[in-house]
């Protein structure tokens, strides 16, 4: 019939849609279960769901999806977290923690983690519910459009989101559930609570929401937004969650803002492995610190809640403006201790 041999159903990715979400919709549109569709389309020897395809999509997957849906390869690639390169993180790497990107923690095919968040109102407003790239981003703890908190688990059964598992264990089901149905208990995630964001510092939350809107739009180059700010924000969040002088920095911000301290995991964990409520709290503290730059950081330092040598600790990629500031503080410190 046709020369291109496209999949008969080849819906294109929605705006900001994750590759994995699109792939599951493709399988369903073609009348197959995800696992069957992938086995038939990519071959038995290629495993799709034992890896984080949104972060590290293999070339054979991207190529096939491009060819079979008539979608330019560049568009297919922009359905992966690759679009945040140079914005949220510097380099892609095959393993280990990527700054600001939530890990999926894949054990075989099961995802044990809570690395995919969702806004119930966004899902409810979709003609066909789909999952967004932005929802894999650690500081994306609330929806800038709906001003409500995201969720990182099913409110009924507390399992993480894993829409590729929807039909597993339902041999009778062919492929009909929308992606917003909990794979584990069948709850419709669109019915989850819309908890309003508690806006305790209007300036911090304004900057935060502005950054999230950019993240949601694929982090475009914007002359009025310097992405290095997000890198410094990451360093500040690390400091807020660090053990240094018994968590004095978090203590300091809590006192200044009247907000409760974020609960800390025992030991050293990357920001990205924190669950949503704690992460939200820590990132909020970091945004507050960045406000009125650099006066609040200086104040924290004067209050002995922050040591100058932490500012650049494990932070080789620090932007110049930040590095300059850290050096100035060091000079000021040396002068003080000299007197």
């Amino acid at each position, binding site marked *: *019939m*046709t*020369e*291109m*041999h*496209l*999949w*008969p*159903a*080849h*819906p*294109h990715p929605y705006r900001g849609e994750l590759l994995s979400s699109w792939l599951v919709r493709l399988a369903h*549109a*073609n*009348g*197959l279960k995800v696992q*069957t*569709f992938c086995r*038939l*389309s990519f071959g038995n020897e290629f495993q799709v769901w034992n890896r984080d395809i949104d972060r590290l999509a293999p070339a054979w997957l991207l190529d096939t999806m491009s060819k079979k*849906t*008539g*979608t330019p390869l560049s568009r297919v690639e922009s359905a992966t977290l690759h679009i945040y390169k140079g914005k949220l993180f510097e380099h892609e790497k095959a393993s280990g923690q990527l700054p600001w990107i939530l890990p999926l923690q894949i054990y075989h095919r099961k995802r044990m983690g809570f690395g995919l968040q969702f806004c119930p109102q966004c899902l409810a407003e979709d003609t066909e519910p789909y999952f967004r790239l932005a929802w894999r981003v650690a500081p994306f703890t609330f929806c800038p459009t709906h001003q409500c908190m995201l969720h990182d688990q099913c409110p009924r059964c507390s399992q993480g989101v894993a829409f590729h598992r929807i039909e597993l264990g339902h041999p009778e089901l*062919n492929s009909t559930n929308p992606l917003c149905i909990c794979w584990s208990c069948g709850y419709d995630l669109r019915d989850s609570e819309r908890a309003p964001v508690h806006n305790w510092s209007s300036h911090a939350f304004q900057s935060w929401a502005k950054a999230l809107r950019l993240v949601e739009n694929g982090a475009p180059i914007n002359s009025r937004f310097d992405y290095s700010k997000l890198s410094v924000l990451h360093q500040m969040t690390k400091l807020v969650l660090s053990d240094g002088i018994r968590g004095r920095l978090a203590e300091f911000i809590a006192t200044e803002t009247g907000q409760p301290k974020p609960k800390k995991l025992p030991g050293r964990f990357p920001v990205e492995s924190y669950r949503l409520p704690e992460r939200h709290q820590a990132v909020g503290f970091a945004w507050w610190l960045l406000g009125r730059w650099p006066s609040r950081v200086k104040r924290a330092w004067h209050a002995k809640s922050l040591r100058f040598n932490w500012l650049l600790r494990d932070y080789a990629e620090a932007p110049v403006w930040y590095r300059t500031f850290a050096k100035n503080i060091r000079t000021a410190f040396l002068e003080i201790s000299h007197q």
Partner: protein
Amino acid sequence: MNTEHLAESAIKLLDLDDVARIERIRSPRWIGYPKAKEILTKLDELLTYPKSHRMPNLLIVGDTNNGKTMLIQRFCNQHPADDNPNGDGVHVPVLYIQAPPVPDEGRFYNAILELLFAPYKPNDRVDKKQLQVIKLLRYVGLKMLVIDEIHHVLAGNLNKQRAFLNVLKFLGNELQVPIVAVGTRDAFRALQTDPQLANRFEPAMLPRWEMGTDFLRLLVSFERMLPLRKASNLHSPELANRLFSMSEGYIGELAQLLTKAAVLAVESKEERINENVLDKVSWVSPTDRKRQVDRAM
């Protein structure tokens, strides 16, 4: 040179060298004639028929090599599938499919899924494949299902025949599209044994040609399309009678015969089809061919 015997499109081909001209003669061409046009009109009406739970169906009946397939392919070519890479799925207004050699529902679905280039499990359960077929045919916007060689599935075991016809009925109802079946007289007879089905399939006959005005007109149409430099006057009584008996009134046979003769006319520099060319063309009449096959078996 006098080119009054040729259609505009054929005159242009006279400029080609002999090799290219022969290639054009051998490529398939469509010759319209009243009965075919009537059926094409009928098909166009069916294609735009408003969706309902009782769609009308059509059974095109004709003997082997009497132009059924050519006619239906003519129709399908006018309503081609479109990859629609910028849209959500391919567009398939008309799906043309050959019936499987036996009335086997699973194989029928496999054939449909294969035509759609859909990923599918050939050994999946029949009900699952049926679901997938219905889902996809809806998705691609199917408006008509054409099943050629329908007599294949109407031969043999009566129960299986009935079961298969029920599948067709189910598909038609479910998708709300007309089904056009194409087959021989055997198919027509099989359908007549079930009044309910006979009701749903209106027959359209493509009878064997008889010697008469229509046949002479057909010969004129053929002549106008064959790029030969001289007029053959195929409709002259001697040639017409000869062509009629050689083709035994089957239009498919006639088309083949005239193609061979026209090629010979170019090669021999005769540049027209006459008794001489017809003497030399290697031709076995359909009846003799059938006898040869029967003897070999």
